[in-house]
């Protein structure tokens, strides 16, 4: 990760990835000589017990009287009751972005259909009264989609993005997993984080 990314032979200013000095392996003492204090064993055991007891007591206090507003130390998420806040890099269900008037941004160029490795996307294009192409039918087969995000990467109009939706992706009947254009339309507001994210990460490709 020490190399700078230079896809177009021009060095970028900003570093990508973890800095080199942090990646350098620290010296690990595999077989250290124990001091006498450690050889007695009991004090070190007591120290270890102290660490676990500290965790136990602090969690016990938090258990009996949960601190309000403070950062909690137990990170277990009760899934159906609590939801995880996913980072923008998460690739959930691919969705179509709608314009302000509620129609899709997609111009039915067919790039996503072409690049989709799982052949999950099918587009039937038409022209509207203004002479612009639009997807008359946009079908995404959820049972075929592999959530690779190529469609989003290739899309010139930011019309299809990977949302953070991770619920309801599986069905008992595969026929219900074939999503139509209407089912996939989401407002631009709901996928804002992801849009900003893809602008950032794909910018270096300079399409």
């Amino acid at each position, binding site marked *: 990760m020490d190399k700078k990314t230079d896809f177009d032979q021009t060095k970028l200013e900003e570093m990508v990835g973890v800095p080199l000095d942090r990646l350098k392996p620290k010296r690990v003492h595999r077989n250290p000589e124990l001091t006498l204090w450690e050889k007695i064993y*009991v004090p070190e*055991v007591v120290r*270890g*017990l102290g*660490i*676990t*007891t500290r*965790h*136990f007591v602090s*969690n*016990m206090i938090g*258990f009996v009287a949960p601190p309000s507003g403070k950062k909690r*130390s*137990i*990170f*277990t998420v*009760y899934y159906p009751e609590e939801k995880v806040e996913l980072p923008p890099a998460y690739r959930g269900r691919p969705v179509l972005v709608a314009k302000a008037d509620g129609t899709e941004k997609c111009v039915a160029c067919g790039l996503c259909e072409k690049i989709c490795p799982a052949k999950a996307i099918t587009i039937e294009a038409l022209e509207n009264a203004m002479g612009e192409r639009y997807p008359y039918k946009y079908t995404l087969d959820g049972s075929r989609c592999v959530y690779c995000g190529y469609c989003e990467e290739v899309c010139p109009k930011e019309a299809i993005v990977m949302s953070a939706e991770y619920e309801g992706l599986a069905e008992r009947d595969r026929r219900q997993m074939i999503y139509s254009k209407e089912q996939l339309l989401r407002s631009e507001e709901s996928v804002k984080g992801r849009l900003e994210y893809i602008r950032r990460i794909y910018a270096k490709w300079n399409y």
Partner: protein
Amino acid sequence: MFADMIESVAKILFIFTVNLGFFAPILGWVERKQSALMQDRIGANRADVGGFTIIGLFHPISDAIKVIMKEDFIPAGAEKLLHTLAPAISLIPAIITFAVVPFGGQYELFGHHVNLVIADLDVGILYVFAFSGLATYGVVLAGWASRNNWSLIGGLRASAQMLSYEVAMGLTVIGVMMVYGTLKLTEIGAMQESLFHWGVFLQPLGFILFFTCAVAENKRAPFDMPEAESELVAGYFTEYSSFKFVMFWMGEFLEIVTIAGLVTTLFFGAWHIPFVSDSALVSFFHFAGPNGAAVLAMLVNITTFFVKVCFFIWLQMTIRWTLPRFRYDQVMKLCWKMILPLSLVNILITGLVLLNG
């Protein structure tokens, strides 16, 4: 005569209720919940009755239902009789060892002498050793009768480990016997009225050694070589299912309680609150009349004793979830090369101090 019988039955029922009815089921829950809190997790809390979970306290019940419903499996080629007998052989000693552990003082109640211990044996400590030695048989038989290589190795390890540590444990307690001059656990308890006469202050080294040996004797981590789930599947109870499996677990939990009770009795003042003698308790409760005072003092004794027991149960659980497992040669080395010589040194020092003092 009749009063004696009532007294014995009441005490036995009490200990059975506390041990089998309270500690045995609840300790499974305690173990899960405590390990969760120590590791910054939440722990069992999903079993609910009518929408109430009560911090997972229904889990022992649901576990019990699950276990009873399970198939009682005996592997082909197993020694059927011994395979069935082994869990009982390891559970029964665990239950009856508690008989000699005193949980209160001696009082006059309605003109009848009440001694809060089930069996006040003159050889109290030896009785404990005898029955913890018997528990070895259950483990070894379970390992042998299962006809499973993992079980057999687990049983062999258990026999070697438990026999070794029994020797060391016996020697560590000799220091306590020398200091108090008796084997009777009630007398040892009664002598620890003052805080400065607690065994832990008179025998600090003895306490550490005895506690280590007791944990090792109970085959719990860091000494859980016989079960060693990363090496031996589940060790000697690999081939056990259903209620027989639970009998092993109950035996283990009851041994935890017994060890906690023994450590409390031998080293931590038994049923005494520091600096408060039994007669002082009775005179403190004089407003309730002689019998009422005795009853109240008994209750205070029992509460104190079981609070201490709970603390040592907690300590054993903490040790179990803190320390990693020993290697097998380390277990043996610790026993024969460290604890045994140290306990001999302890006996020597105790003898010298007693001679000069």
